[in-house]
């Protein structure tokens, strides 16, 4: 039996990274359609068997690579190369989910980064007096970014807002100083 810690390590790694199930299913489905088409084509050929001469004529059209074929080959080649590289990258890149681990005595815990962003926005709005609807927060793996559109005529302290964002994000283990931007033009009302 593996220890609880080992189970938690595994769960946390899996829950913070994409399983690539969607991509695998999509690619597999296209391959199935392609193979089914090839199989159907073969059955069709069996039922309407062309003579060897016809087959060879068709083949030499393709393999002689006449000028008329150049652009179709170029176009489908580019398409295949781009698609292939995208699929390859999906296979290789880590695929991190927008989630963050939190320490816990009892359980393995992750929190969605937008939940963190929400709570930072709440705190900034409460401490600085900025309207909650005008505080936008983006949280990523390293830090939070805050953007505030102030109400015209009401002073807003960037220091207070920054300190609020810092204090709140630090609770989630985000150690880097938040970037707080206050829009130059406020809104009325």
């Amino acid at each position: 039996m593996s220890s609880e810690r080992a189970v938690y390590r595994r769960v946390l790694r899996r829950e913070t990274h994409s399983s690539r199930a969607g991509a695998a299913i999509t690619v597999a489905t296209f391959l199935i359609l392609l193979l089914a088409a090839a199989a159907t084509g073969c059955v069709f050929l069996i039922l309407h068997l062309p003579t060897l001469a016809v087959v060879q004529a068709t083949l030499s059209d393709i393999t002689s690579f006449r000028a008329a074929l150049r652009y179709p080959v170029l176009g489908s080649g580019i398409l295949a190369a781009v698609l292939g590289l995208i699929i390859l990258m999906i296979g290789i890149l880590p695929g991190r989910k927008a989630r963050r681990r939190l320490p816990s005595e009892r359980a393995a815990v992750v929190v969605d980064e937008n939940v963190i962003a929400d709570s930072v926005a709440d705190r900034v709005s409460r401490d600085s007096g900025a309207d909650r609807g005008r505080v936008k927060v983006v949280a990523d793996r390293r830090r939070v970014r805050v953007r505030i559109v102030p109400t015209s005529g009401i002073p807003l302290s960037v220091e207070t807002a920054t300190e609020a964002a810092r204090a709140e994000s630090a609770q989630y283990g985000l150690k880097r100083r938040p970037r707080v931007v206050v829009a130059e033009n406020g809104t009325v009302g």
Partner: protein
Amino acid sequence: MNSTNRVVNRLFLIVVGAALATAGLTAVGAAILPQWAHVWRSSAPTIRDMVAQAWRVGTAFAGIPHVPWALLLVPVAALVVIVLLLVLIFAQGRGGTPRVVDSSELPSAATGRLAVSTAVASEAIRRSLAEERDVAAVRVSTYRVSRAPALKVTVTPRRGAAPLRVLERTEGAVADWDELLGLRVPVFIHLSGGVRAALAKPVRTT
């Protein structure tokens, strides 16, 4: 927390992606580089001979006097690969289990069998959090991780609630459940942003 085989998924994507990219780049090369086009053209007779050879080798099939083996083998091979791909597709996302404890899986030598349904855990944890106004939704499920059941508790904090307080309360609910069960099962807690989180990719609040 499901048992999706991620290594297989990634290997599959890498192999298909690399094959497609190689084929595409070869086609592009043949279209724009004269040397590559030359290779393509000069290999043409060989390919034609190979196909002609394959075309001649055949058998009588379904009343047709001569059917090339190649035309019979390609659909069969395609069907085999299609079955493998279907296995890949349907192996995704498995691993859920309706039981959070099953004594027949425990190493003890006791006779008889005890099983605790996930619904019991779900009910207990929901009850503990029922009074909590900061919690918008609770979902409890069980997955097999490393051959043993583990609980997954997904909690959606209400907007404007302090997520860490919600986490504290959820850990409290898990402690209640531990006491009720008398056994310690691995627990995974997910503080979720709800459907919003899945739909809107960039993390954003207004």
